[in-house]
């Protein structure tokens, strides 16, 4: 009964018909209740399906489809659930060497959405991750706040003398930050933001390395390996 109550409130909020006093409780529940997130996502799919322009309907055959279950797939749920859907990719499943050093291609791939990762993103750790990425994007000071002047000269990066905490090599420049907490990630993730990249790399000792700037994936991996040593 209680379940039905929150579900009905979700339906009303979806329609913009929930009393303001009840919105907080629904949003709070929604932030941690995956089944409710899924339901919201399915409401959205339902609306889209019912209002879709028939002229645009066309079957699409994609190769190697892993999950033919469309209605209850988590893809959109997670894809839409957090800002982290900016773009992310799992380094374990994507072999960048196949793309060569082409930054454009790497960036393009970063726009892929992996459904397994999407589920992870939708986990309880999402809020920490969202907060972190938003700070990286929105607060320039954040990336300079715990820089420890790590020597990266052996991978060709020098610290910018004028702008401390910024590393430079040719056209590449970035700032880094180390977190003592792991932010709930256990695989490398990266996002594209404008013309910059955000890399989050879990290190062996439990810390997380954040790299933000004009940096290609190969350089990011090398830097992470140096710091991880």
């Amino acid at each position: 009964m209680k379940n039905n109550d929150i579900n009905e409130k979700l339906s009303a909020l979806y329609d913009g018909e929930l009393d303001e006093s009840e919105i907080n409780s629904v949003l709070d529940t929604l932030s941690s209740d995956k089944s409710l997130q899924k339901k919201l996502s399915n409401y959205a799919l339902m609306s889209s399906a019912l209002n879709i322009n028939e002229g645009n309907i066309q079957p699409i055959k994609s190769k190697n489809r892993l999950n033919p279950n469309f209605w209850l797939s988590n893809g959109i749920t997670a894809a839409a659930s957090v800002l982290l859907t900016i773009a992310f990719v799992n380094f374990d499943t994507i072999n960048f060497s196949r793309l060569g050093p082409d930054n454009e291609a790497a960036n393009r791939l970063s726009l892929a959405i992996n459904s397994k990762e999407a589920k992870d993103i939708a986990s309880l750790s999402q809020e920490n991750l969202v907060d972190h990425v938003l700070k990286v994007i929105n607060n320039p000071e954040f990336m300079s706040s715990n820089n420890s002047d790590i020597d990266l000269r052996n991978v060709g990066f020098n610290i910018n003398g004028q702008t401390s905490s910024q590393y430079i090599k040719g056209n590449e420049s970035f700032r880094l930050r180390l977190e003592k907490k792991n932010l709930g990630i256990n695989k490398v993730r990266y996002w594209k933001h404008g013309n910059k990249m955000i890399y989050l790399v879990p290190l062996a000792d439990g810390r997380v390395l954040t790299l933000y700037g004009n940096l290609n994936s190969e350089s990011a991996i090398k830097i992470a390996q140096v710091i991880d040593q």
Partner: protein
Amino acid sequence: MKKNNLDEDSLLIHRAQKGDTGAFNFLMTKYYPRVYASLFAFTKSKEDSEDLAQQTFIKVWKKIDSFRGDSAFFTWVYRIAINLAKNHVVSSNYKKDKINISSDAIEMDFASHANPETDLMHSQSLNNVRSFINSLPENLRTAFTLRESDGLSYEEISLITDTPIGTVRSRIFRARESVLEFMSQESTNEK
């Protein structure tokens, strides 16, 4: 508590403008499929549509302070999406991307996730759902379609159907639950 298309999201928008990511996530979840579908209609490309939908919501988040409610929220989001799509199509990067990405990469991209929207566009599935909606009890069907297809507020539906607003809310919810259950069964049958 009259609502209309222009202000049905106003409470959530107001919260998002104050930095409430929960409210923004709600809005993003609500409109992601429609944004994606609009972009797909424009680009005819699955991966470009995903790319642009994501960029759209980044931009929406960054610009949400500038939304003044002069139009429906989705209209505003839609304009951002289509402008991004237009710029994307004419940009040299777009062409360069198309050339540079190996077929392996694209295939991997496709294989790495399922996209409900592409499946959603299978007309047979749509027809099945629509048929099911038509088979709903009349009171549920009427409330649901007035809301979903005609975009009427609960109050307007209440007046049309001569039913208390609370009953309208309950009927719409029950209709949605029924449709979701049908979708789930359809999905199971497909496996």
